[in-house]
């Protein structure tokens, strides 16, 4: 039985038991008015009556006439590889700036419709994140440039090339501004261009900069490298504000490693321990075992303090100024020291001085080339903030003759963006290769739009020895040209970029001494998507020698940071869904609830509960107040969101919003936090500690949060958790075993049933969800949306609680006690624990929805699925009312081909956007219920392939979209009737059982709401926190 008396709460309104919240929570469908012109009281108007009449007449006449003539138009010359209705898969690579993922693209009739991870990649290992999943839609973005432009007017490529070739030659000094370039061939193409033009310099910056690390490596070790990190090899992880699971450097890779180190079982009851010291509650912080909120002005000192603690143990002289005392810090230091060589300290700071100290700590802990790998450096971030800063000055001084913005948007996403905007006109020639006419591109003279990455050839070198290829999966939709090819063209080189890449690879192939011919080598690389150079694996270990010293860095830190801040500091952070804002014009990402705040479609200022109490702000269900924020000479008005876990005295504001030229989805949402960033310190600093003022304007505002929409009505034990110590003693620690009184004794709920039960003779599909692995990153929610044509409904409808997501990630805060007074609330919200629980249709064997449907539109299959038949549904919504998990979604409107939703639901309204729809899944009509189908289209396809090949279905033949997308393998799908399947082994299902009620022997596995015995086919594994035994 559960011993601790934790209180779980989805939002502050639930914690305080707000009467309004309770009222709304009672209703599955609160009475919000409809979008159309209905009367205030919700009754029908005369006009509605006439419309209904009109509909009946139309329906009657429609029935009388013949069906429209439909055409079947085959190819003239069918490509050999394309068979209509049969999907093709191509390995490719997603890369934007330094963000990298090796992917497999699913195409139908030559249209890419889904991105999956590439399992062959040694970096991303088959994982994706929300941005990668959503990137397929940016291919079909209406905002994309259709053709090159000269001076704002559409032009021909030949005209553009003709004008540019001459102008660039005579421009004098040319600067190419770019985000991190991972492609060796692109670099070579730029070199060809530079050789031709003479005075060319490539200046690299990154919107989310990690310049601090490379600069620190340079000062401390003498070479500016970004090491690879191995979170899986660390027993103790200490992170100072590095959101490595959400947005820091290579989150997909790190998430996989991190989860690897935290997968536990009875046989291996060990997991890493994770400390986080941060200001805003990040995705990473919410997964930490011990989290300490610190202010931004303390962040440097905290790292220094840890250094001193470690240095004392190591017998090295300590640095001055580092005596800040923080909760958990000395505990962390002790454990780091005890796990020398198996620990890892990272910091999200972009301050090179802080990173020098971090390097020094890892060196003292002997982590170098174990968990911090300098031998196999990563190339994800090559940005040089100080050079970029200098460029801004040069540009404004008129020293730059020509400037080419290569797929970057510094006017928007660089700290000195406004200065660049002002200076562009001073350059003689300005060119942008951006795909859309973004903030920077709309200021330049020449637009030479690049292909989308799914239309491009390219190669990438994300890490030493690891290469990957990108190949086009669709012909270019518009008259665009790949930027490297443009560089070649302007240099007078007419080689196609494809040939150019092959040249490079052929040359390297000849040197490598690999056996076989180049064509087969190339074909294999293209098929795999990745190539791992073997020579690098046996690279000689070069001893790292510290050339810099900690004392200088410590002194600088001592000056820049204070133990007691001003009490009003601003931290600019990166959201998991929106990221740097480059993909902001993607409605899937805009509507994806932020993993922590669960807010959609908005940028807001996160404040602590303490600040809210002091300023008389009471937030419930998104209803909040606007505030005026002044910092760094800028003033904004933003809504305020009370965020549990936010460090007192700090505010948080996310990057990626406030776009003005991204497209109609993103434009005008939120404010641009880049404008607040100070880039003048020699590095881009993502926090402001001085001169920040925040005051409420008194104006009301509503943030569209999804979290409070569905609640369990106080039923406990939805989340079951234990500490590692408890788990080691008892594998079923934290489990709740409900019992029901019957005939004089207590029995398991499954022993009492009205139903005789199903029998699954062939398959019994099941899903196991390890809450210990789920980091809440929401890659699954976007993957599901893409796979199943789930509609985007827009902010207004999210406010009306009508979001359509089939899978949501419930985020529960937990604190020792409930709260009724403000003071208690403050305490509870100060630093709560967080649990993530993916929630989708549980495919119950005793499904409550099935028994209440009056038209049998929802039924049970012989394979354990709860089926939803849209064409039979008449929209009574009884099923949703009767669903204990609140996972059914009702189509209140026709979301497709509806001008009211055209601005948000672009995949179902734009002619271009519709190309992304999955042709195997119905686009649902108005008035029907929908929900997770367990990707039945994939199940059917997998079964059919097996049948066609005359064999049994193998584990892995069928996998659901959410499980495929998951970077941490938290979701495992499979056939529970197959004793060899991964899910059966995980659950320890008893063999040879065809009954619906499987005996599951895994102690951690439980059903949510087991006591009502709906017998789901989705199992959850208890969350285990690596805390000392009696700490709850």
């Amino acid at each position, binding site marked *: 039985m559960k011993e601790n008396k934790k209180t779980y709460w989805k939002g502050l309104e639930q914690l305080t038991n707000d009467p309004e919240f309770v009222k709304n929570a009672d209703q599955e469908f609160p009475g919000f008015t409809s979008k159309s012109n209905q009367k205030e009281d919700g009754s029908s108007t005369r006009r509605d009556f006439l419309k209904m009449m009109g509909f009946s007449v139309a329906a009657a006449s429609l*029935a009388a006439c*013949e*069906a429209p*003539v*439909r*055409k*079947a*138009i*085959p*190819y*003239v*010359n*069918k*490509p*050999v590889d394309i*068979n*209509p*209705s*049969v999907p093709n898969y191509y390995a490719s690579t997603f890369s934007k700036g330094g963000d990298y993922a090796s992917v497999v693209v699913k195409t139908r009739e030559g249209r890419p419709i889904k991105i999956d991870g590439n399992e062959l990649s040694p970096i991303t290992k088959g994982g994706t994140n929300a941005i990668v999943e959503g990137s397929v839609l940016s291919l079909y973005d209406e905002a994309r440039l259709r053709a090159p432009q000269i001076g704002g007017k559409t032009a021909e490529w030949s005209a553009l090339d003709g004008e540019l070739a001459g102008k660039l030659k005579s421009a004098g000094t040319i600067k190419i501004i770019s985000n991190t370039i991972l492609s060796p061939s692109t670099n070579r193409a730029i070199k060809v261009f530079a050789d031709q033009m003479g005075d060319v310099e490539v200046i690299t910056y990154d919107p989310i900069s990690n310049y601090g690390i490379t600069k620190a490596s340079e000062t401390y070790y003498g070479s500016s490298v970004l090491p690879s990190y191995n979170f899986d090899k660390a027993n103790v992880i200490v992170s100072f504000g590095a959101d490595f699971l959400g947005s820091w450097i290579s989150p997909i890779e790190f998430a996989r490693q991190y989860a690897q180190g935290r997968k536990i079982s009875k046989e291996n009851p060990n997991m890493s321990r994770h400390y986080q010291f941060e200001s805003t509650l990040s995705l990473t912080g919410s997964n930490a075992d011990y989290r300490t909120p610190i202010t931004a002005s303390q962040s440097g000192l905290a790292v220094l303090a840890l250094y001193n603690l470690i240095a004392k143990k190591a017998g090295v002289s300590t640095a001055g100024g580092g005596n800040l005392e923080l909760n958990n810090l000395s505990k962390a230091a002790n454990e780091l020291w005890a796990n020398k060589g198996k620990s890892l300290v990272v910091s999200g700071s972009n301050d090179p001085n802080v990173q020098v100290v971090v390097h020094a700590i890892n060196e003292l802990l002997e982590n170098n080339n174990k968990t911090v790998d300098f031998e196999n450096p990563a190339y994800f971030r090559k940005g040089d903030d100080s050079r970029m800063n200098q460029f801004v000055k040069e540009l404004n001084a008129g020293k730059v003759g020509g400037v080419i913005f290569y797929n970057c948007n510094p006017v928007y996403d660089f700290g000195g963006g406004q200065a660049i905007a002002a200076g562009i006109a001073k350059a003689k020639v300005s060119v942008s290769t951006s795909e859309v006419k973004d903030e920077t591109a709309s200021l330049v003279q020449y637009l030479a739009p690049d292909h989308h990455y799914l239309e491009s050839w390219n190669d990438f070198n994300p890490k030493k020895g690891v290469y990957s290829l990108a190949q086009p999966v669709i012909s270019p939709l518009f008259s665009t040209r790949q930027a490297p090819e443009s560089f070649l063209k302007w240099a007078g080189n007419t080689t196609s970029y494809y040939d150019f890449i092959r040249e490079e690879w052929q040359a390297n192939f000849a040197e490598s001494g690999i056996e076989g011919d180049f064509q087969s080598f190339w074909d294999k690389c293209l098929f795999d998507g990745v190539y791992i150079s073997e020579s690098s694996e046996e690279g000689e270990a070069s001893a790292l020698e510290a050339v810099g010293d900690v004392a200088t860095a410590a002194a600088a830190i001592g000056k820049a940071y204070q133990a007691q801040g001003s009490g009003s500091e601003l931290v600019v952070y990166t959201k998991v869904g929106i990221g740097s804002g480059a993909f902001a014009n993607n409605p899937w990402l805009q509507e994806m609830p932020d993993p922590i705040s669960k807010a959609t479609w908005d940028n807001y200022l996160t404040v602590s509960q303490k600040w809210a109490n002091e300023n008389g702000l009471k937030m419930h269900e998104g209803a909040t107040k606007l505030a005026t924020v002044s910092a760094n000479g800028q003033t904004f008005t933003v809504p305020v969101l009370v965020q549990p876990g936010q460090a007192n005295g700090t505010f948080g504001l996310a990057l990626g919003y406030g776009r003005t030229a991204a497209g109609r989805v993103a434009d005008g949402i939120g404010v641009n936090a880049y404008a607040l960033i100070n880039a003048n310190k020699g590095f881009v600093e993502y926090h402001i500690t001085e001169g920040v003022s925040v005051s409420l304007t008194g104006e009301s505002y509503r943030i569209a949060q999804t979290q409070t929409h569905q609640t369990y009505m106080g039923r406990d034990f939805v989340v079951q958790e234990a500490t590692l110590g408890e788990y080691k003693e008892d594998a079923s620690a934290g489990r709740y075993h409900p019992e029901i009184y019957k005939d004089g004794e207590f029995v398991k709920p499954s022993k009492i049933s009205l139903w005789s039960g199903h029998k699954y*003779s*062939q398959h019994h599909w099941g899903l196991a969800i390890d809450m210990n692995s789920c980091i809440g990153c929401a890659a699954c929610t976007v993957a599901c949306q893409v796979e199943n044509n789930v509609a985007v409904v827009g902010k207004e409808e999210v406010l009306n609680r009508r979001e359509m997501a089939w899978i949501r990630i419930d985020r529960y805060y937990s604190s020792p006690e409930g709260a009724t007074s403000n003071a208690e609330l403050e305490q509870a919200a100060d630093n709560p624990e967080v649990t993530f629980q993916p929630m989708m249709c549980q495919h119950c064997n005793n499904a409550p929805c099935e028994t209440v449907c009056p038209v049998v*539109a929802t*039924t049970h*299959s*012989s*394979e354990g*699925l709860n*089926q*939803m*038949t*849209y*064409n*039979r549904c008449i929209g009574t919504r009884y099923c949703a009312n009767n669903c204990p998990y609140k996972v059914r979604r009702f189509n209140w409107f026709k979301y497709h081909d509806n001008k009211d939703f055209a601005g948000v639901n672009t995949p179902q309204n734009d002619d271009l956007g519709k190309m992304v729809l999955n042709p*195997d*899944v*119905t686009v649902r009509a108005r008035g029907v219920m929908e929900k997770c*189908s367990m990707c*039945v*289209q994939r199940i*059917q396809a997998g*079964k*059919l392939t*097996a*049948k*066609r090949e*005359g*064999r*049994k*279905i193998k584990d892995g033949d069928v996998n659901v979209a959410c499980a495929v997308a998951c970077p941490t393998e938290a979701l495992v799908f499979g056939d529970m009737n197959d004793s060899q399947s991964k899910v059966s082994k995980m659950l320890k299902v008893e063999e040879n059982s*065809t009954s619906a009620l499987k005996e599951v022997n895994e102690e951690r596995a439980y059903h949510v709401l087991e006591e009502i015995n709906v017998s789901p086919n989705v199992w959850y594994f208890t969350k285990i926190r690596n805390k000392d035994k009696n700490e709850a």
Partner: protein
Amino acid sequence: MSIKRSILGVSIRVCHLLVLIFLFSGIQAYAVDPEIPDSEEAISAGQSIFNANCKTCHRLDQKLVGPALRGVTDRRELDWAKQFITNSQVLVQGGDADAVALFKEFNNTVMPSHDFLSDDDLTNLLSYIEYGDKADPAAAEAGATAEGGEATGSGGGIPNEYLTIILVVLVIVLVLVLVVLGLIVSVLTKYMNKSENLDEDDKEFINQKTDYKGIFKSDGMIIIVTAIVLAFVVKTAINGLYTVGVQQGYAPSQPIAYSHELHAGQYEIPCQYCHTGVEIGKSANIPSANICMNCHMHIQNVEGKEGVSPEIAKIYDAVDNNQPIEWVRVHNLPDLAYFNHSQHVAVGGIECQTCHGPIEEMEVVSQHSALTMGWCIDCHRNTEITTQGNEYYDKLVQLHSESKDALKVKDIGGLECAKCHY
């Protein structure tokens, strides 16, 4: 150039397909005579090989894509013929005069190699070419109709016209019975009236008149009549509603007067030759113009006519102008229903004709089946599953073995909603 190349690609793949069909047909050749044997076994073995590999391009007595073949052994050396069949390009490139001439005559069309045929196979093939059925096309036609008859016959039950006749005869017989009964009654009445020993009651009973008016005006009658009329109207209305959207018999005219009767019927081109997707995917595929061009590069007209047929010219136009042919869809399933051809054809082994009707007799294709959900479900209720040799079904067969009935589609979830609706 590219079109030619891909045509080549397609024809090579078709050959592979044919090879597969051949391999699975399990025919063993056993002739030993070095000269061409004329035994029936050899001829029939040869015919199978011919049908599987050659028929797409060759006829015995008719020039098609390739030459008419009968008498080839008289015209050429036996070894030469075998070598040419095995790999004609070896001869052509080797500069053999006859081979080069042939190659030129037929527009440099490369005959796919048949190196998988053994020497015995080749001998059998040649014996079929030599002695095979003299009335080749006629026989083919007869075969086609026979097969077609089988396909339609499989519907079972009594044909409609017989039912009507039976009904009419039944009505006539019943009317006659009625008349006879009436006569008997009147005769009996007369006879009874004549008899003397009857009291008043009896007389009244005998001579009673039926009060038809009363019956018609009685409540019961009105209720019954109203109910019957109402039932009839409702039934008609329901029937009418059920036909909404059902387009059985829909036979739109197509942009090209393509005849399945000619291609599938007379020439027996297998359906899969053009509808390439039928065994691999959801769509059977309307053939792309390049598939038409495989044959129509050479066949420009129906036999015996001069010049390019105007209908075939439309294909050439399409290819020359790179303009796809816009066929009119005959079979339109609603978007809410998922149907996969390969499930039914490749896995279930269902004949095309089961759903599409006697397509090989259709000059213009019409929708043969209702394509309603009832129609789908009926078939799923009644169709047995071909489980043999398919490991996928092993467990189901084993679990079903206790049952006396055969394993049908409905038994493995074939009636469930999410099999077709998602």
